[in-house]
Structures are given as C-alpha cells and as structure tokens.
C-alpha cells in the first residue's frame, strides 16, 4: 500500500475539480480558453486554494506534462532576491516550445519579500514578459508593492464556507473508508478554521489512530501535536512561578516557533476564561493591550512577553491578597 499526504492526494488537478471560489475559477477558465494569461496576484488566507488554483491553471493550459512549463519558487525558502533573479533568468530566457508561447513562474509567499527585492522582481517581470508570466501568491496583497500590483490581475481568495469543507471531509472519508461521527466532523471543521490544508492534515492524523473518528480522537491528536500550552503558562505566572512561566514562553517561541503576536492573541482570549475576579480581567486586559503595542515597537518578543508575565505574577499576588 502506498502512502502520501492527503493534502496532495486530494489536491484538485484541474480547474473543474476545484470546490467553491467559483468566480475566480471562471475567470481562470477564460484565460485557458484564450490561451493567454496576464501576470496575476493570488491573495488570501492559508489553505484557501491559491497554489492549487495556480497548478490547475497550468495543468489545463499545458496538459498533463505541465511541469515542464512551470517553475515554483517560495520566497521564504530562497535566500535573497539574487537567487530568485538568477533562477528566473535561466528559466524565462528559453522560449516555450509548445503552442503556448510563455512559461509560468509561481512565486509563493511573495509578500515575504522586502520592498527592495520586490523592486528587483518588478524589473525582472518586465524584462521577460515575452516569455514568462508570473503568478504571485500572498497572504496579504497589501504587502506587494504598488508597481507590481498595477501590472497584475488581482484574485482575492476567501475562507471556504463550512458546508464546502464538510463536503470535502466526507468525500475523503468515503474514499479512504473511514468511520467518522458528526461531532468528529464538527471538531475537525472547528480546528481547521477554514484552512483546508490544516483541515485535511487533522483528518489524516485522526485517521492514523485507526479508531472511529469522533470528537475525542480529534482533540486528542491535535493536543499531542501542539503540547505547549499558553493557558498553562498564564496559570503558572498567576501562581507566582515567574521563572517557570518564562521557560514555557521560551518553549512556545523557540521550539514551536509561535509568533509573539499569536501568543498574545491566545493570552487575550484565555483571560476571560480564567477563574479570577471580573474587575481583574479588565485590569489585565489593559496590560495586555500595552504589551501588544510594545511588541510592535520593540525588538525582542521574549522580553516583551516576559514583562507581561511579571505583571501576571504581580496581579496573581494581589488577587490572592484580595
């Protein structure tokens, strides 16, 4: 039996297979029909089908051997614009031999490039516009510089509606012969949060237990995947354990690679669930807000968040004193 990640196994091959994002798909299909595409920006949250749409477009345009006519680059994986420029040069210089007179370069996470790098990219795009088309993929189109935006057709991807995600889960479950309960589906949808890649990863991980997939199975595998816990860190601090809480924070930042702002967002949503006097919840919120602002200006996330933990220690002591 052969195995692969289900995100790949069930990735649509053709524009016809794509669920939802109807408007986008129709526009892309019209490009295929015309045998021509402009430079494009695909913007939207993770797991909403941006890369899939680009690959399907290439498939429908060039046929099953489309791999020869496209190149995928990930801006976060490449060190510096020079790598991108050189790769693009070599790739775009040679003309395409098929009936479509250009090749496609898919540049993922393009919004992670500095504005200098984007300027250089803009020049490259212009120079090779005869022989190559660019599809830039980004979470936020706002982080793409204006001169590039004005040269590209924009496509805005949105989170998939819940019923589409449920449909996809049930489809995969049927193909794989899984037993899945209604609350299991609900839990996966909840954890996936509209991100289809994450949704399918959770489903496959839950399926790997070999047990029927219910709510409990789902939460237990997700809990094992992300053991470091923001709530526990907060409780440790409130109970006076600054050094211990600081170590937990470090683990979240370094080992699990969470961003400071992500941790702060979780702290924010946890505060209301803490068993502390109501007025303290609001007081703590003020401290969190200030930390959020300092996080934007500061240079060291751990120090900013540790300062917050020290305030938690102080608050915990005051709460215990009544």
């Amino acid at each position: 039996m052969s195995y692969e990640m289900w995100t790949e196994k069930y990735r649509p091959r053709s524009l016809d297979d794509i669920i939802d994002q109807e408007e986008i798909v129709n526009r892309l299909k019209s490009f295929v029909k015309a045998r021509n595409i402009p430079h494009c920006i695909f913007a939207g949250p993770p797991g909403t089908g941006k890369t899939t749409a680009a690959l399907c477009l290439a498939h429908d345009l060039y046929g099953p051997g489309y791999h020869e006519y496209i190149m995928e680059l990930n801006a976060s994986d490449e060190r510096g614009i020079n790598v991108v420029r050189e790769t693009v040069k070599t790739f775009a210089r040679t003309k395409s031999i098929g009936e479509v007179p250009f090749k496609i370069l898919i540049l993922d996470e393009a919004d992670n490039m500095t504005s200098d790098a984007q300027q250089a990219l803009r020049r490259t795009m212009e120079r090779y516009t005869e022989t190559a088309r660019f599809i830039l993929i980004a979470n936020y189109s706002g982080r793409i510089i204006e001169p590039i935006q004005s040269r590209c057709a924009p496509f805005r991807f949105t989170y998939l509606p819940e019923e589409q995600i449920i449909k996809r889960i049930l489809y995969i479950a049927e193909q794989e012969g899984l037993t899945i309960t209604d609350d299991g589906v609900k839990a996966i949808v909840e954890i996936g949060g509209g991100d289809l890649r994450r949704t399918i990863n959770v489903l496959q991980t839950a399926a790997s237990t070999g047990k029927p997939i219910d709510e409990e199975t789902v939460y237990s595998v997700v809990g094992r995947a992300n053991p470091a816990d923001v709530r526990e860190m907060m409780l440790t601090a409130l109970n006076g354990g600054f050094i211990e809480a600081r170590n937990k924070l470090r683990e979240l930042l370094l080992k699990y690679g969470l961003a400071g702002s992500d941790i702060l967002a979780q702290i924010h949503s946890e505060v209301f669930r803490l068993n502390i006097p109501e007025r303290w919840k609001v007081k703590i919120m003020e401290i969190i807000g200030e930390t959020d602002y300092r996080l934007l200006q500061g240079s060291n996330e751990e120090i900013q968040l540790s300062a917050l933990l020290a305030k938690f220690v102080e608050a915990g002591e005051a709460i215990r004193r009544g």
Partner: protein
Amino acid sequence: MNIPWTLKYRPRTLSEVIGNEDAKKKILEWIRQWERKPPKKRALLLYGPPGTGKTVTVEALANDLNMELVQSNASDYRTAEAIQRFAGRSSRYGTLFGKRRLILFDELGGITGSADRGGLREITKIVKETGSPIILIANDAYNPRFSTLRKSCQLVEFKKPTKTQIRRLLAKICSLEGIEAEPDALKLIAERARGDVRSAINDLQALAQGRKRLTFEDVAWLSSRDRKEVIFNILRRILYAGNVSGALRAVNEADVDLDMLLEWIYENLPYHIKDPGELASAMDMLSLADVYRGRIAATQDWRLMRYYIDFMSAGVATSWSRKAHGWTPFRFPSRIMSMSKSKAERGRLRAIGLMIGRRCHISADRAAKDVIPFLRVIMQNNPEMGMGIARWLGLDDEMIAYLKSGG
C-alpha cells in the same frame, strides 16, 4: 545550597591539586627541611597567573601535614603595624597545642602605593627572622617592588594546567553533581578558561547547576567576545547600584556589547528580585529598553541609544529595594543558550521542511508549523503510514529518526 563550586570542590589534599607537579614537589621538599632546622631561604614565593592553584596548594599542604595555616591577604596587612600584629608573633612562637604553623601572605600584589611602602619592608624583615615557614603568593614575582623581598625567598613558579587536566576536573565535578556532560562541552569550557581553573569551575557552575545534562550546544555560544568577569562586575554594579548615577556609570565605564548586557540583566533579574511588584517594575524597565532598541532599529537613529542604556541600567537599579537573599550566583543568559540549541534544531526542522515543501507546495517554515507536528503524531499512531509518508517525502533515516524522537 548556593555555595560556589570553587569552594565546594576545593582540593583537600595535595594530590587533588591538578597540574604543577614540579611546584608541589619543590614545596614539599622545602617544608621537610623545616623539620630539622630553618632552611637558608625561610620563605617561598609562589608566583603564576590567576587560577593556577597557588592558594589551594598551600591550603592542601597545611591540611596534609596537619599544620595550622595562619593566612591573611593584602587588604588585611596594608601597614607595617598590621603585619607585625598578624605575623610577627606567629612567626616566632609555636601554637598552644604544638601544631606547627604555616604563615601565608596571599595576594602580595595587592600591597601598593606609598601607604603600604612599609608593608613590604616589614614582610622582608619577618621573612629573615621567622621561626615558622612563610609562603608568599603573587601573580608576578618579578615586579620591581618585590626585588628586595625576592632575594630572601625561594621562587616557585606555577604554570597553567593543561586543557586536558582542566577538562578532567570538570568531568569529575559533573559526575559528583549528577550532571551528564558531553565531553565537547567540557572541552570548550576548559579551552575558554585559558588555564584559569577557578574561572573554568565558575563557568561550569553558571552553565550547568541544576541541570541534568550539559550539551555542546548549551555552551557553544560562549565564544562571545566579552569576558565574563567584566560582565559579572557590571551586573553587580547595576543591580545593586540603588541610584541612577551609579548604574549609568557601571555601563559607561565598561566596553561591552549592550544587547548582550541586556540579555544578562534579563536572565538574572528574577533570581535577585523576589518581590513580585519590584520584579514587575524592573521587567517593565527592560521592556521599555527593548522598545527603544526597536526604535533604533527602525529609525537607524543611534542617538536613541542613551534611552536604551538608561532604562536597562538606571531603570532596573531603581526598581527595587535591594534586599539580598544570600549569595546568588550570576547565571549565563539561558535564552541565548536555548537559541543556539534551537538554532541547530531549527536547522534540522528546516531541512525536513524543505523536503515536505517540495512535495506539498509550501515553504519550509510553513511545513515545520503545519505539517511536521501532525507527521510526528502519525508516526506514533501508525508507523506503517508514517514510514510510508516519510518515504514518499524522500526523508532520509536521520530525519525519520529525528521525527520519531519527538524532537
């Protein structure tokens, strides 16, 4: 609990003193001569770089030979009268219980300036007439100030123990402390100490105390340019300054990397400041300092540096009441230790992430965040599926083993 390891693992007998076999032999021969009659040179002058074992050798010797050690250091004998009081009588009479005396003048280099001019002369006089053996210790025996004194002394040089000798000592301490230490980690500490055993032991304590394991990655970052003695000194001066000007002076007088200094302060604050309110204020000051660090980076306006310094030093110093909690050793910034460790770990994750990215059309970072945690769980739940996916991704054995280990 918090006693310095240099004290805890001080040699009890001569054989425990590492290195300097020649010096130890010479000292023993000289002291044996005293059993018959005072030798021609009634004093030994031990000299050599700091941390080579001069003082501990004398202490171990007195212990081995059951002698009473009468010792004092420079701060105690700055004047001729004080020296006369301390050593004059000791040198002429035996002890009440017939134990032989060994007189030790440590830190001879500490006698300086005109006020102490009489001090060296007095010591020279005592050396000539002493009835008990006298040992003098200095870093540099050939300092011109000692020229007269030197003539009455037999010189014994202490050399720096080798890296191997220091490393073995560190290994012994680790095993007594129940710490499993990688040989390479101890090797690096030993190398960095440059023959100074005391500093090597202090480093080891700062890095390893309270831990079960010490890996090379834990100590690899040590090769930073700032000497830790300098940092310890500044740290103490900042934390315990109690006022603005003292704290600022401590920073301004030292030439250290400010970002690193901030890390040191950040690491050590909670071990010194126990009151929650005071700790919160001090941490708030570090947070403000960091905000200015960020503003400097954003604007490239280095004039803002002064506020960075103000908050991390004066701000912290005035945040607390300086209640001491016994001897608290300074600790190396563990954040930096974890960062260098997680740098290696991130390297491994990135390599695996790149492989996943190639198959799943995502970046290595996203793969590390979104796929690897699930892949680990799959490997535990269903080894067949896990291995199948790993092969499909093209992961090598080492990568698979790393994922299985749970990182």
